[in-house]
């Protein structure tokens, strides 16, 4: 594990950590959810929990797009990839995610399906141009940061009149997931998770701005601090949350002042609203069905919508029953509560999505946290 001491900002980190310990009220607890998998990863990588007093608990949120995609959506991607004449272009993160019946995109590729890893949606458009006799489907996933790139790729394909390019859209919305954690009855019925405040994701907020979180502060009285990804950013954000909670405030504050504005990136938001509309319903692994929590292509772009073009419909399927990913994504269980964790399920042989993605809570626990937990 890389420790904070190794960096030149170690002194600053120690100073902030001391302030957190001094100011945290021992008479109460602080359950703080870091929404984003990038934060989860950083918290473990830099051993941030070691610096916090025992009454501050970091709860790992569902902000990992690979992790929250339900098995049935992955099955759709695998079915699309196995169609004759199709090239499925995907971000590398998706290749090893287990579908149902032990399937994965990697296994489909080994069986002869033409699946290409791309870094950017631009690469997927180039694939379509270079392969006019093939159908190129881009497997689009992600929160608000990857959505504008997908929108621009669809516009580029429309401009170039590419008739062989389409998108299998799985873009999901951060505020919907936070709302679901705070209010959805389905979540409450399963196992209520009481969260005192949120660390908001920096890059998502670069795009959507800080404004969408104001609702959570106003309506739910939960403070939100938008935080950068460096260890000092995270510590400072935790301190800001502690101070808000101590003072009984519930505001949206921005620790990551550099690139986040109240309105976000207007160009990006406009591109998204030109191409996409809200889906009436989308199923999330761990959070269940959440209305208006994901995007689909507008009718005007139906020709670029792989689901409509190839008549693929979602069929809910159960993943591995022993896998605790769903409860872990709600913050209700920890990876070490899962009996598969570290035994049948490791980063080399992942059985659940939270272990596949390096941003997933299980992968972060396994890579950086397991030794510490075992020692306790």
């Amino acid at each position, binding site marked *: 594990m890389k420790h904070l001491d190794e960096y030149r900002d170690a002194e600053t980190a120690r100073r902030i950590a001391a302030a957190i310990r001094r100011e945290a009220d021992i008479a109460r607890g602080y359950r703080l959810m870091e929404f984003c998998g990038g934060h989860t990863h950083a918290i473990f990588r830099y051993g941030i929990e070691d610096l916090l007093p025992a009454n501050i608990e970091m709860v790992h949120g569902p902000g990992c797009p690979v992790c929250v995609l339900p098995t049935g959506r992955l099955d759709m991607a695998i079915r699309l990839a196995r169609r004759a004449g199709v090239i499925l272009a995907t971000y590398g*993160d998706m290749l090893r995610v287990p579908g149902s019946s032990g399937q994965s995109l990697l296994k489909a590729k080994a069986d002869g399906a033409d699946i*290409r890893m791309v870094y950017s949606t*631009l*690469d997927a458009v180039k694939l379509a141009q270079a392969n006019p006799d093939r159908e190129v489907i881009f497997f689009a996933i992600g929160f608000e*940061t*990857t959505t504008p*790139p997908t929108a*621009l790729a669809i516009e580029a394909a429309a401009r170039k009149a590419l008739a062989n390019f389409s998108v299998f859209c799985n873009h999901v919305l951060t505020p919907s997931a936070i709302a679901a954690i705070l209010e959805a009855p389905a979540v409450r019925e399963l196992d209520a998770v009481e969260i005192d405040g949120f660390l908001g994701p920096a890059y998502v907020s670069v795009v959507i701005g800080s404004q969408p979180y104001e609702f959570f502060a106003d309506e739910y009285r939960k403070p939100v601090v938008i935080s950068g990804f460096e260890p000092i950013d995270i510590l400072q954000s935790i301190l800001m949350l502690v101070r808000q909670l101590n003072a009984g405030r519930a505001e949206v504050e921005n620790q990551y002042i550099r*690139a986040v504005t109240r309105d976000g*990136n207007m160009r990006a938001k406009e591109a998204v609203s030109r191409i996409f509309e809200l889906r009436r319903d989308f199923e999330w692994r761990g959070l269940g069905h959440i209305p208006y929590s994901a995007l689909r292509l507008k009718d005007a772009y139906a020709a670029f919508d792989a689901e409509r073009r190839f008549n693929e419909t979602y069929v809910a399927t159960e993943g591995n029953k022993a896998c605790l990913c769903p409860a872990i994504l709600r913050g209700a269980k920890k990876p070490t509560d899962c009996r598969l964790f570290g035994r049948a399920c490791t980063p080399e042989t992942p059985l659940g999505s939270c272990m596949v993605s390096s941003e997933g809570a299980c992968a972060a626990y396994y890579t950086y946290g397991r030794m510490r937990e075992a020692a306790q």
Partner: protein
Amino acid sequence: MCHALPVKIIALTGPDTAKVSLGGIVKEISVALIDDPRPGEYVVLHVGYALARIDEAEAERTLALLAAEGSDAVAEFAAAGEDAEARP
């Protein structure tokens, strides 16, 4: 996919594209989401697109941290585009 990196714009190559540099590696990216991008500026790069402009001091701070630890994000940047072009 979830990585983002500060990179420096070296040159604009089209209405929406620019060459950027990170640790001596140069790639072409989209700057379609940035108002009036200019050479010499730093932007946050994510899946081939600049998401936002950032100031140089911030960029240098993040890059120093990445250099100190050997980053997956830098490796991903270096490998960008390779698999897509690997097959005819």
